[in-house]
């Protein structure tokens, strides 16, 4: 289960190349080729009110994208990785998912754009849509992120994202899938952190005995996860916490210096998923770390 073929989608926003460079490290873990993808939103060139289709603009945008990609291809080639360019016009999410399927990629990498106020309130942004619908793992790359911690504005650069991945598990099947996928990082990750949070909603009103029983059980399971990781030749350490899941996961990632967060996609029903977002989607949105979501 290694990431041999990766789709890297970009809008050519600032630091996009740096984001690309961070995934070149995957070469050590078996990465063979990258599909450089740029989608020109259809509305940019089509449906000119009472006019037609801006063919010249489309050609110009395609030429600009191609030129940038060709420059990037040199850097990719220096790392001994093959690459191809896909530039299409269409609905970005649908096109990304369709290209991923056509090319048979193992991983989709997408950047996170600066969020508008509306997107901050409404979790269902375009990127969330891809996270929700992709049948293959999606890495939400965040090269440079500004975030608030203890009333301080901080800036973080995520350049060695595979050093200390933090696998957050809720013991679900997607979490098991994520665990199996961790073997793809062999030769790349120095230590894998395995964490679980006993959610406050679950422990509320629970007897002390029951709680310690759950704690014991959780530790056993975490140890079991670590054992599996160590069996595949990587180092692992576990941490258990309790409280509000999303906030605790963000805190754990900071306390233990995680370099990225890996999660199985939480399987909520359509309505909650769309309007509220699962834990995995909230983490992807709120954490300053890149998030790798495994279906």
């Amino acid at each position, binding site marked *: 289960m290694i990431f041999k073929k990766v789709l890297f989608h970009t809008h050519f926003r600032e630091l996009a190349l740096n984001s690309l460079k961070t995934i070149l490290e995957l070469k050590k873990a078996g990465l063979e080729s990258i599909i450089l993808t740029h989608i020109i939103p259809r509305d940019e060139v*089509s449906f*000119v009110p009472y006019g037609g289709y801006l063919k010249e603009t489309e050609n110009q945008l395609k030429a600009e994208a191609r030129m940038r990609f060709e420059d990037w291809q040199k850097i990719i080639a220096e790392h001994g990785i093959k690459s191809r360019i896909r530039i299409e016009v269409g609905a970005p999410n649908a096109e990304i998912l369709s290209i991923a399927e056509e090319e048979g990629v193992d991983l989709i990498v997408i950047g996170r754009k600066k969020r508008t106020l509306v997107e901050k309130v409404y979790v269902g942004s375009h990127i969330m849509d891809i996270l929700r619908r992709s049948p293959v793992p999606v890495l939400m790359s965040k090269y440079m992120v500004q975030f608030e911690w203890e009333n301080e504005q901080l800036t973080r650069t995520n350049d060695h994202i595979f050093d200390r991945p933090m696998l957050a598990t809720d013991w679900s099947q997607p979490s098991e899938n994520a665990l199996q996928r961790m073997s793809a990082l062999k030769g790349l990750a120095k230590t894998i952190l395995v964490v679980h949070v006993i959610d406050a909603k679950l422990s509320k009103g629970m007897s002390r005995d029951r709680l310690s029983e759950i704690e014991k059980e959780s530790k056993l399971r975490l140890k079991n996860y670590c054992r599996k990781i160590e069996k595949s030749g990587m180092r692992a350490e576990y941490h258990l916490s309790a409280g509000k899941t999303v906030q605790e996961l963000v805190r754990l990632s900071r306390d233990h210096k995680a370099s990225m967060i890996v999660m199985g996609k939480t399987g909520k029903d359509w309505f909650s998923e769309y309007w509220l977002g699962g834990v995995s989607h909230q983490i992807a949105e709120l954490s300053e770390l890149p998030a790798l979501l495994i279906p």
Partner: protein
Amino acid sequence: MRFPKTMAVLLFLLCFFFWPAPMIAVTHASDTADTGHAPENHAAHDSTEASAHGSGHANLGEVLPLWSCIPFACMLLSIALLPLLLPNFWHHHFGKVSAFWAAVLGVPFLWIFKGGAVYEILHIILVDYVPFIILLWSLYTVSGGILLRGSLRGTPVVNTIILIIGALLASWMGTTGAAMLLIRPFLRANNYRKNRTFMVVFFIFLVANVGGSLTPLGDPPLFLGYLHGVTFFWTFKIMPHMLLVSVLLLIIYFFLDTYHYRKESASVPSEEAKEALKIEGTYNFLFLGGVVGSVLMSGMVDLGEINILGIHRAVQDWLRDGILVLLGIASLIATPIKLREDNEFTWFPIIEVAYLFIGIFITMIPCLLILKAGTHGELAFLINIVEKPYHYFWVTGALSSFLDNAPTYLTFFNTALGSFYSGLTEAQAVPLLMTENAIYLKAISAGAVFFGACSYIGNAPNFMVRSIAEETGTPMPSFFGYIIKYSLIYLVPTFAIVSLIFF
């Protein structure tokens, strides 16, 4: 992002117009009471008073100068010329252009006519613009959830059948809905053919225009007529005209397609994977039925009136608008996002219509008021010139070719009202126009709908079809190429026959 900025401009305009309404109306009323003169204020006062009693607003139309129609002309000229001359600028700033012309008319209009102007602006927004956009939105949303899959072979017979189906659907799901449903399968079916341009042009003629002439759902001008009192099934009276145009165009199309098919020695590629035809999202036909039902309901029941911001509107009209919004939302919830993506559904075209039409509706206020004033207004010369039914057919048609056909329809609808029933309220005049002078209304309706096909800017779906055809690699004629090579050759002679027979 383009959307919020333009939206902000639009909101600013709306707030600008809405906010001072009660204050100005009150101030104005007391001013008039105090002074008892000042002709402009008097006219405005009469207008406001008249509104409360549901009568027309002829007085404001009598005092408005002809040059107050300049922003309307500029708005329409912007739509006609800017997509040709400055396509990139237009694509990204059309909302600002619309807001600009609305402000050019709105600010001085409010300054001079105060309460009367507030009333007229609110009236056109609440009575015309809001229901117009809601209907278009719901039809667009619901029809965008219906997807036709499968491989078709684009032979002359199959293509003609697609055009017939499209023309039949257009009156029930709107020309935009029918065109969007069928244009991609139509293009896919013919992707192996060399000459596809004429096919798309005839698609625009029949599906995006002529086919929509039977019901108020078909084409925006007819819905505006419906909003102004023309009954739902009255438009069936132009079925003979529609059938004649459709049959003539279909015969021409069939011969043209057969000629090219043989000339190209076209044959369907044998390696093409065959996929059975199927329609997905069929439950959206139920929502479509709901749209038809709610529009019908609003014309059949009388639940009284409601006064919102001084504008009297029937309860059943608000109810219809609410149901249409719910049907659109239900379609959005019921239809999988993947299906809409496969349909290449995007909000852009409907947002564009919403932005442009707020400008059109606001700038056209003086024009409509002057026409309603009949021979007492400054457009008396036009009313005197346009006398015979064929005048109405050709003048409405000629202008609908180059201006959007919805405002053009409303302009000549009011010309006819002003001409025959000056002094009567719209509620009194429209039934008389539908019966005593039905031929004039037929001429206006047929002219507005049919001639919308004469250019890319005659009707909203025309440019959407053109855009999709060009995107998928079908070369389309230029703006003037379309008129010279197709409209003048195929449409104008067909319309001449209609004119000779019916008008």
